């Protein structure tokens, strides 16, 4: 197991290095971060020269990449164009984004697996057809349309009906927070519910389709017929024999979709005006801020690699035939 983990992490590290270099080139070559400053006639040339020196823009692109790498080795992400250190800010935003990503992943697993199982158990029933139709519709709807609809219609209705703001549609928390832990938790939750539902609605359809297909595959297999013939209770057949086998491929799909969830989070955060990693990435790209963009990519990619490793280890436990050599 340990050699397997080390090898996977090594491959992940190589991917990260290559990705960081390619993205560094792409972002650096996409324009001059000081263009706005230079276009302003009131800025003296000395200031621009100083900024260029501070940002190492007068050095070659490979030298700049090396400077970035040495920052990474020291454990920080370098400074942004505006001069503040990227690391501490990013870690704060990561916590906010993880609220959304973790919440949506958990809810999507429950929704996807649950609906898939129900659909397969009642194949060609009204439930199955409605679930299938809903999955197709949500699968074909962009994240931002779902978000805008929930925000403009559901939130307004619910808040009117409740007579107070239950579902917040803007920001990741209230501007003024009471210090007590309980009220802060409540405030976070009220701000997180709608974005989590939004991201869940576009994530679960693929998983539930997959779960349904796997369930049907397993249900009609010979060993399930045998299990029934042995006289096992239907419940035991479902939980121990069908579900355990049908979950195996779905777990992989969930792992593979992690990066997509982070991508969806960028859009969701944008719709709900969250000041989190998505907004960080978007401003980074717009301002040609290499260190900011790379910090985002390294952090999300690192999380995705670790999560996928975890998924593969779980996979090994679910399916004893798989040996991680």
């Amino acid at each position, binding site marked *: 197991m340990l050699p397997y983990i080390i090898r996977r992490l090594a491959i992940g590290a190589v991917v990260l290095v290559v990705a960081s270099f390619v993205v560094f080139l792409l972002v650096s070559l996409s*324009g001059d971060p000081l263009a706005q400053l230079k276009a302003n006639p009131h800025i003296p040339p000395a200031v621009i020269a100083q900024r260029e020196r501070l940002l190492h823009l007068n050095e070659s692109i490979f030298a700049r990449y090396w400077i970035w790498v040495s920052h990474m080795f020291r454990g920080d992400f370098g400074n942004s164009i505006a001069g503040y250190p990227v690391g501490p800010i990013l870690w704060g935003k990561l916590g906010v984004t993880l609220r959304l990503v973790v919440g949506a992943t958990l809810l999507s697993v429950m929704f996807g697996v649950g609906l898939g199982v129900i659909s397969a158990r009642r194949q060609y029933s009204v439930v199955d057809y409605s679930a299938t139709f809903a999955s197709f519709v949500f*699968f*074909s709807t962009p994240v931002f349309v779902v978000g805008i609809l929930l925000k403009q219609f559901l939130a307004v209705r619910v808040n009117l009906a409740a007579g107070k703001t239950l579902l917040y549609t803007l920001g990741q928390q209230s501007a003024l927070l009471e210090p007590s832990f309980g009220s802060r938790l409540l405030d976070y939750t009220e701000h997180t519910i709608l974005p989590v539902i939004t991201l869940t609605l576009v994530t679960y359809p693929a998983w539930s389709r997959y779960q349904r297909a796997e369930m049907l595959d397993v249900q009609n297999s010979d060993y399930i017929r045998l299990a029934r013939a042995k006289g096992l209770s239907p419940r035991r057949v479902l939980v121990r024999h069908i579900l355990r086998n049908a979950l195996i491929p779905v777990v992989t799909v969930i792992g593979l979709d992690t*990066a997509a969830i982070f*991508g969806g989070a*960028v859009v969701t955060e944008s*719709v709900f005006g969250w000041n989190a990693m998505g907004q960080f*990435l978007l401003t980074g*790209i717009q301002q040609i801020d290499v260190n900011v963009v790379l910090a985002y*990519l390294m952090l999300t990619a690192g999380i995705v690699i670790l999560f996928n490793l975890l998924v593969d280890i779980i996979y090994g436990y679910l399916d004893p035939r798989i040996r991680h050599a």
Partner: protein
Amino acid sequence: MPDNPGLLGGATDPATGAPAPSTGVGGSTAPVEAMPSPESFVDTSVAAVAARSQGRAILRRFLRHRLAMASLVLFVAILLLDEIGSRLWPYTYSQLTDALNSGPTGGHPFGTDGVGHDMFAQVMRASLTSIELSLVVAAVSMVIGVAIGALAGYYRSWPEAFLMRFTDLILTIPILAILLVLSRQAARHAGSWLFIGLIIGFVIWTSVARLVRGALLSLRERDFIEAARALGAGDGRIILRHLLPNAVGPIIVNTTLSVATAILLESTLSFLGLGVQPPQTSLGLLISQNQGAATTEWWLFAFPAIFLVVIVLCVNFIGDGLRDAFDPRQTRVRA
């Protein structure tokens, strides 16, 4: 529906679908190509029916797929509306009419926005851009995906390594983040929608490539490939005449579904301001511009959103129908 036979004809007839091989040796491969498919075995056993090609059987299954056919009709109707309707419509998408903030009326069935743009003209133009862009994406990703997938599946070695590492990259970093970084360039280059289409195509080809590689890995071990090689067929001929035609089903299905993916990605990029740039327009851009109006001037938001969802839904249903038509046993192809 003039598009239908063309789309399926080229797709389901492997002999015409594959380009003429350049490296074939002699004309002695005919027996191999004439090898009957399982479907034609079944069909010729029915006395009244003459030998029916596999392509016809697939076409027939697709035509019987009601949901897919309805989606195809609707998709073509939207395309024709965008293509022809926008020429006949009195307003162009960029024209400012004198009706400001008008709700849906006889003259402006989709209403107008705050500066007097006719929304019907805008939605037609925007959905045309989205569809054309997604077709570019499908073409680009299919060509790259089939080429690299075929090389990786047939020769293994470095094309396979390249494909696998590129796939690792795509699975590790959110595609959206990669596209956002790339499309920053597009925003600089006057924001041509074609450029956006090309970069999406250059990023999402891996799914087709993995499918083709997977199919070729098993096909290349089959006896008919051995026979072709024994008859003197070169690598190029084997790949183009014998391997790829047998993988055409998954390629077509995946390419169709990539149209849906492309429309969603394009609209998302445009929504975030890094996709199609004004004065060009796309459905994502329209929705982005009008997102605040969803409850007040609902027509500004609803019509682009409905068009977007309906188009993507149609493409997904068509892809589903094609999958059923190509693979009636319902076994999914795994890469």
